[in-house]
């Protein structure tokens, strides 16, 4: 055997190296795997917390009647059964990336080792080229090639990712404009968009419900024997339908209805990520409905404490406001006297008297009794107070400044001072009463504060839990979008031989965990 012929028989081995060298294009997905596992852990926490919320509500005898709690317990079981496939799909996402990661790692090692063996075999061939038994080595190479070819054609990393893409990300379709034409990108390639959008969630849910209800109806009507039921047990839904059809328990029309509904579901091309998002959307609504209900019922139960506290607080504020207005009135009277004593400008004195009238009107609005007392006191003063009676009775308005000024001009300083002396006396008496009330209100508030704080804490706890769970579910939805985006980027990375970046997913995962463990933020 010539050297050339011998080398030519080693060509398959060179092909293996070429195949393995393509393995070095597989990006490192260990970080994607890690972040994905953290994301799914966070989503599992959200579904577990929702379960915890239903469980908590079903145990709150103070918030719900026995009948409502019994229904909540039934719902809890339904929830636990209903959420299992979602948890299984999260487990599958983890297992998928772990398998891809193992594949990527194995690819990498194989590439390194295959280079080493080819070098060794080549050396061997060179060394023994004069011998005739090298055909054995060629057999090895051929065996490897067969195996490698099999791997290359059906088992390579890229194919695995592409085959899984539609399952996890969902289907993509060409984007079309309003006229129905395909939208192209800058490079002239069609812009691809997710098919599972818009009415997909409602349509898939409706069709799924139709299948489920029809199937349940058929099973009820079929009166299956124990043996038949056991035959159906291990079957997939599709197999069950075919079997029921074979037994004559399902009509052709029913079979067709189910197939049509299945086609409707399939037509949207929704992936695992989309389905998990649909479910999280429902978890959000469950959280909202239950948390709001618990909050409102707890508020109603504690309405007396909350209402009493609120009333005392509001009444005390009114008292304090009136006290402040009385003090301000007295302060203004002093300032007017001071201005008059120090030859202040008539304009400034007039301005201050108008302000004094406004202050008095405000006091009358706040306290009807006070108005009566002041009116009586001024009436008792009689002629010696002149037109102070008018000053008291006249109600100020935007256009009545000239009229009020005319009244003030007809009140002498002595009448003004005397009249205000009477008013201040009434105000001082009123202030004493208000002071007492203020002290009493503050005492009441102090007394009721512990029970009020306990109620507020409970309500805050319900509200905080609702907000936290809502934020966790929102972040989970957003992280799932980013997961799909990262998976799509993985496909691009495989084609462009660029590294895969998972920074965005890392950031989303951090967001999820900062909600779950805020103390670690």
């Amino acid at each position, binding site marked *: 055997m010539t050297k050339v012929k011998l080398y030519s028989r080693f060509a398959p081995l060179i092909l293996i190296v070429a195949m393995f060298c393509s393995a070095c294009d597989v990006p490192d997905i260990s970080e994607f795997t890690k972040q994905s596992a953290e994301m799914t852990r966070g989503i599992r926490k959200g579904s577990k917390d929702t379960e915890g919320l239903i469980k908590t509500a079903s145990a709150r005898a103070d918030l719900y009647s026995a009948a409502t709690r019994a229904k909540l317990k039934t719902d809890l079981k339904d929830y636990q059964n*209903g959420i299992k496939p979602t948890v299984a799909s999260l487990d599958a996402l983890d297992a*998928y990336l772990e398998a891809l990661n193992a*594949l990527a790692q194995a690819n990498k*090692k194989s590439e390194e080792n295959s280079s080493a063996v080819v070098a060794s075999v080549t050396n061997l061939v060179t060394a023994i080229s004069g011998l005739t038994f090298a055909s054995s080595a060629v057999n090895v190479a051929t065996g490897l090639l067969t195996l490698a070819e099999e791997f290359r054609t059906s088992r390579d990393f890229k194919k695995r990712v592409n085959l899984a893409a539609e399952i996890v990300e969902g289907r993509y379709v060409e984007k079309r404009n309003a006229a129905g034409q395909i939208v192209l990108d800058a490079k002239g390639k069609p812009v691809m968009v997710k098919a599972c959008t818009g009415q997909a969630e409602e349509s*898939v*849910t409706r069709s799924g*419900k139709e299948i489920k209800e029809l199937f349940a109806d058929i099973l009820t009507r079929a009166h299956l024997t124990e043996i038949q039921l056991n035959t159906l047990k291990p079957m*997939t839904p599709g197999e069950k339908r075919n079997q029921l059809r074979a037994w004559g328990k399902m009509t052709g029309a029913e079979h067709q209805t189910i197939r049509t509904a299945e086609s409707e579901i399939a037509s949207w091309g929704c992936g695992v990520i989309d389905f998990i998002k649909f479910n999280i959307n429902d978890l959000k609504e469950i959280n909202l409905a239950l948390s709001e209900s618990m909050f409102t019922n707890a508020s109603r139960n504690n309405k007396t404490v909350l209402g009493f506290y609120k009333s005392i607080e509001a009444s005390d504020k009114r008292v304090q406001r009136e006290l402040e207005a009385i003090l301000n009135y007295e302060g203004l009277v002093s300032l007017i006297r001071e201005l008059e004593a120090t030859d202040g400008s008539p304009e400034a004195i007039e301005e201050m008297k108008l302000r004094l009238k406004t202050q008095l009107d405000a006091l009358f609005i706040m306290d009807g009794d006070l108005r009566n007392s002041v009116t009586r006191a001024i009436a008792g003063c009689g002629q010696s107070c002149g037109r102070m009676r008018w000053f008291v009775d006249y109600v100020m308005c935007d256009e009545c400044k000239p009229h009020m000024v005319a009244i003030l001009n007809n009140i002498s300083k002595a009448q003004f001072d005397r009249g205000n002396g009477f008013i201040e006396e009434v105000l001082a008496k009123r202030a004493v009463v208000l002071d007492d009330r203020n002290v009493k209100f503050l005492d009441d508030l102090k007394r009721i504060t512990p029970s009020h704080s306990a109620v507020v804490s409970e309500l805050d706890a319900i509200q905080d839990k609702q907000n936290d769970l809502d934020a966790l579910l929102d972040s989970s939805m957003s992280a799932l979008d980013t997961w799909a985006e990262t998976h799509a980027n993985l496909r691009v990375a495989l084609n462009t031989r660029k590294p895969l970046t998972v920074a965005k997913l890392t950031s989303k995962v951090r967001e999820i965990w900062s909600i779950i463990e805020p103390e670690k933020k």
Partner: protein
Amino acid sequence: MADLDQLEQKVNALDENTSSIFSFKSAIRDIEAAAGTVTDQNVSRLRTILKTYRLKLPDLPNFSRIETDARDLADNLMLATLAKRIARIGARNEALASLTGDLQTQIGKANKDANLLKQIKSGVDKATKTVDEAKSLVDQLTVTNTSTKNKLKALIQSLANVSSVFEPQED
């Protein structure tokens, strides 16, 4: 939707301290009527309206009947929402399980691929070792030595057998 807009305005206009019992009664009757016709999309909004209403309802003995009605309605709306949402998840479960099953198939294949590559690695390791040994023996072929030649033949044969570590794989 227009009905819920009006209902929302009506409830927003109620005041715990100033609205009459008749206004509260009228509002709860309207809410009850709306609950009978509300769509799935608007049930959350109706619950919010009812929540606003209940938080405004005065805590007075003559309002207790209204409060009981409002609480029952609120609990029923909450339970209906809960059941509906769980049913929605359940309705999609078969399709989700089917997709998860497909994904599991791909996981199985990927794991098989990974194992296959591990086998290749193992085979390559063995082949490398054998070739290294063969090289060492070939180095000794400076003189014609029948015994060494025989050993070399046996070694090369074992190299050929390396391929046996790779078993046929299914797709």
